[in-house]
């Protein structure tokens, strides 16, 4: 499929075309940029739910149940599930789909994504991949991050509602307090409530929230058992509450802020690359030598290089 074929088929909501565009995006092909430019107007229409939490917490199982519920309620759902790339081989086993078999039957679109070395819990191109899936006219996109550690909070830059999943038995209160990812949750889920320790974990989370600063939206804590569906009606209700809280105004404001931030990032990166190419590595190594020989100080050196 060439560029025009893909664009035509995207407009017919052809699944192969969307899947191929996703590949072009994740491979960072120039072709992907050209297509994205042309379809931009059709994108941005889905509500984005992000799901993050430690490895094995039950994220994929939750995504599966949520998707199925959403579909039964008349929504159209797309899923992006990110798993880590092995730093040794560059390969990956993408296993999230394994847990998504019940929603699979409903004709949902699921794409497994490898992080390909990107840090932060997502892949570098996740944002554009969401846009590509939106060509299928889904009104809901669910994004599952890699099993996240404390620093992996990139999902908040993308999701309208971020759900943080915790499970009992992973560690004590101290660990929970350290976890930066708790602070990003619009909804906190305590999954595996069939296991001992879930009540205690819920109480600890509640305590931590009450000690933190007061916000307009205080994250609710929802207990779930993803293996049998317990708690999911409540979870769905809280997602709807948060969506209502955001409303159109807060959502637009939030998205504007992100676009602003993203644009700033992109522009500064492009400028940086351009300037670096202009300066050239030769100039840098020449200057380094001078610094070593004490012919110039590093501070002046920087000023001189930039001025050139």
């Amino acid at each position, binding site marked *: 499929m060439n560029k025009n074929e893909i664009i035509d088929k995207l407009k017919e909501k052809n699944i192969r075309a969307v899947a191929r565009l996703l590949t072009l995006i994740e491979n960072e092909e120039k072709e992907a940029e050209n297509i994205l430019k042309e379809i931009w107007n059709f994108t941005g229409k889905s509500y984005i739910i992000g799901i993050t939490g430690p490895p094995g917490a039950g994220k994929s199982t939750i995504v599966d149940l949520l998707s199925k519920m959403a579909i039964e309620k008349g929504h159209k759902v797309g899923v992006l599930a990110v798993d880590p790339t092995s730093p040794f081989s560059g*390969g990956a086993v993408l296993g999230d789909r394994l847990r998504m*078999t019940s929603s699979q039957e409903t004709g949902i679109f699921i794409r497994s994504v490898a992080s390909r070395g990107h840090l932060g819990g997502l892949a570098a191109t996740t944002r554009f991949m969401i846009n590509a899936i939106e060509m299928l006219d889904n009104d809901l996109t669910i994004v599952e991050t890699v099993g996240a550690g404390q620093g992996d909070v990139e999902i908040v830059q993308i999701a309208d509602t971020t759900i943080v999943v915790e499970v009992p038995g992973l560690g004590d209160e101290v660990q929970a307090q350290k976890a930066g990812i708790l602070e990003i949750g619009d909804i906190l889920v305590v999954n595996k409530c069939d296991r001992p320790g879930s009540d205690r974990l819920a109480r600890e989370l509640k305590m931590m929230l009450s000690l933190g600063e007061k916000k307009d939206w205080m994250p609710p804590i929802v207990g779930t058992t993803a293996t049998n569906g317990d708690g999911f009606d409540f979870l769905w209700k809280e997602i709807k509450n948060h969506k209502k809280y955001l409303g159109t105004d807060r959502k637009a404001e939030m998205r504007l802020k992100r676009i602003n931030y993203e644009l700033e990032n992109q522009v500064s990166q492009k400028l940086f690359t351009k300037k670096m190419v202009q300066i050239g590595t030769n100039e840098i190594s020449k200057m380094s030598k001078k610094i070593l020989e004490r012919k110039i100080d590093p501070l002046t050196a920087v000023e001189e290089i930039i001025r050139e």
Partner: protein
Amino acid sequence: MSKKGKIRVLIAKPGLDGHDRGAKVIARALRDSGMEVIYTGLRQSPEDIVEAAIQEDVHFIGLSILSGAHTHIFPRVVELLNEREASDIKIIAGGIIPDEEIPKWNEIGIEAIFGPGSSTNDIIDYIKGSAN
């Protein structure tokens, strides 16, 4: 394939066959050779497999069948890929497939079949060669 492109392979266990060791061994070996492997688990219907392969935009579907059910699963997967205009996705397979049947399966579009004892290096080399 572009610089950043990776070979993507869907490893599937169709039908009621519960022998999943081979599929897992292959999934891990392919990952360790730098490929992206989507493992869909047990009890997948040919329809599930083809739909997943299309959504995931894989280069290969790898079927692992030790139950004897390949006789109806192979033709069905080929047929569904044709229906979806996705016959550029290649099919390879492994498990318990009688040697004398192999030419027949090759002919309908199962590119290569690797039985018990196949070396994972041979399988990796085959996939890398066929992808280019």
